[in-house]
């Protein structure tokens, strides 16, 4: 192109320049294309199918037809309301526990770990080297009846405290609310810790010196400077924990009982065992909309639009 610009008449030079600017204005769209195609084929189109399925009636033998049968939603919600609220409750508990464990952990790695920083970060990610299923099965072993953990809880009578709180039953830890929330917290902890670490690590330590200079005790400096500046990480971490935890069905299946069934398990069962596709699709939709609404309210409340 440069040869052209040198050699030929001014008119064609302008032409060359126009092509170049047109090409550069198309570049962003070209870069977006693969992602958009992926979303279209694997998200948007299936969503349309799912929406359509949720409004169909019929049976597996006779086939389904779109009849705009909204009653499916009402029936599904009436039948599975407890599993719904339970899922959100468990996910919220796991998120809160995740913050309580993940924040100090991320803080320690970011500010206090010194040369062990990278080793600790690897340790946070290490569980991902085994599969989600195996990790959850490991918790079965940890909490198993007659195992050391149960024995400790029994010996210290903590098991009685938990039983009276309704977290466990039958003098065991397995097959309980406690076990499911433990599993959820454990499995999603890295998703909480890593964004928190990333935003804490960026907090300029000189700001804390300045806060100290301006009459803040270390605790006040944390509350007024470090905490607000780590909000983007906190918001990202809670979302990355809460959203998948809401729809999770492995933890409640492997660590829980029939009294701890979560909505993910119900959807799984409706799709793959009961083969009631409209109900399964309707439940999926309700779950998705509930999460979107909760997250929208949360992000707005957190007021971190400009920081995220």
């Amino acid at each position, binding site marked *: 192109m440069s040869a052209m610009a040198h050699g030929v008449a001014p008119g064609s030079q302008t032409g060359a320049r126009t092509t170049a600017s047109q090409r550069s204005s198309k570049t962003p769209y070209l870069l977006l294309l693969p992602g958009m195609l992926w979303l279209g084929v694997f998200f948007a189109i299936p969503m349309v199918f799912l929406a359509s399925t949720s409004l169909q009636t019929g049976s597996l033998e006779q086939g389904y037809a779109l009849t705009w049968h909204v009653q499916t939603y009402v029936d599904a919600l009436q039948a599975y309301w407890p599993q719904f609220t339970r899922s959100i409750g468990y996910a919220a508990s796991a998120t809160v526990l995740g913050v309580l464990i993940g924040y100090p952990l991320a803080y320690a790695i970011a500010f206090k770990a010194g040369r062990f920083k990278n080793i600790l970060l690897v340790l946070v990610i290490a569980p991902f080297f085994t599969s989600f299923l195996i990790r959850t099965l490991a918790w079965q072993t940890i909490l198993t009846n007659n195992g050391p953990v149960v024995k400790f809880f029994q010996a210290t009578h903590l098991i009685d405290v938990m039983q009276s709180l309704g977290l466990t039953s039958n003098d065991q830890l397995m097959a309980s609310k406690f076990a499911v929330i433990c599993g959820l917290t454990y499995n999603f902890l890295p998703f909480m810790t890593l964004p928190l670490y990333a935003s804490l690590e960026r907090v*300029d330590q*000189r*700001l804390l*010196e*300045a*806060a*100290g*200079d*301006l*009459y*803040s*005790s270390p605790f*006040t400096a944390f509350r*007024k*400077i470090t905490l*607000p*500046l780590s909000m983007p990480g906190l918001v990202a971490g809670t979302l990355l924990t809460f959203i998948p935890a809401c729809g999770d069905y492995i933890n409640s299946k492997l660590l829980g009982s029939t009294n701890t069934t979560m909505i993910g398990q119900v959807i799984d069962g409706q799709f793959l065992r009961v083969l009631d596709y409209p109900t399964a699709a309707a439940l999926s939709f309700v779950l998705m909309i509930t999460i979107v609404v909760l997250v929208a309210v949360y992000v707005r409340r957190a007021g971190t639009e400009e*920081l995220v």
Partner: protein
Amino acid sequence: MTEHPLMIQQKDRSDRPDDSGPATADSDLRLVGLTKSFGSFTAVDDLDLTIPQGSFFALLGPSGCGKTTTLRMVAGLERPTAGQVLIGQQDITLTKPYQRPVNTVFQSYALFPHLSVVENVEFGLRRRGRKNTRTSAMEALELVQLPQLANRRPGQLSGGQQQRIALARAIVNRPSVLLLDEPLGALDLKLRRQMQIELKRIQLEVGLTFVHVTHDQEEAMTMADTIAVMNAGVIEQLGDPAELYERPRTTFVANFLGQSNLLPGTVTGSDGDHVVVDVRGRSMRVLRSRCASQDGAVWFGVRPEKLRIVSEAAAVASGNELSGTVTDASFTGVSTQYLVRLPWDQEITVVQQNDGTAPLRPGQEVTVQWAPEHGFALDADQDAHAGEDLEDEPVPAGAAS
């Protein structure tokens, strides 16, 4: 200039009923035997210093001379290895930074990015539970002439504006001592000159004690009432800017503040108020009060702009003169800087105002003259090149963020 709400006038202070003690010492900053070692390296070595209340004091020195460490010990960000920091009679050596009546303008400004400008300025007042913090903060913003930026975020401001906000955030607390850590280091030259004048105005207006750390000798001389020149953890010389410039006591000060020509000489006698120094066979006279050393071997010094250059033919014999050959002439606008080679192969620098006299060319034989009250004599034990070429050192990394 209108009277500012933050202003403390000298007479008001002495009229205060509780002001019963000696007028000068009620909140002077005193450093007593202050020492800080990092391992085997002594950053600050047994420093004794009294900074009077209400003065603009500069700690001047090259990077690594211990000036910032001294400042951080006053702020409480560094714990001294030995010695004391006192404000008036109160020993604050071991108190935490947030317990000290001291505020700092940091080199990096360290403004809180998640708070608005006015919230930044209010920060210290709110931590101490003061009332009407918003009003005080706005007054401080008016003092630095940026009240219109109150609701912006620091990230939206230019470097110079951030610098003023950092100043307002510190001043609003009315500290006993305000520390400025290379506050202008990250600004460009023109803005720096402007802020120097501004800082001096604000200091006069609020009447607080300013302790200013800098490596820029011009900045220190422009603003400070008193300068302490620091080198290798100790104070080389303390005095007002003119005193330091006109009568340096060490070769480090002679070279670090401006430029000096130092010639090897020997004291041979005295003549009334003058000391007679032999420089390579020529007798020079210098005022006794300008001699840091009055016997034996000395460095005989004279500033380049104090030298008068006359061509060989036009020379009128006087006491203090040397002859040599011009080896270089560089025109700098208001003045021309010449290098003159002396018979013993030493080159001296001469700065001549461009006042219309014909310029000299390299190779020309000249005579250089100066008045006896312009020379000075220093102890010959010191390195004649100490402190040279240090003033233009780059600001340490991280300062510009």
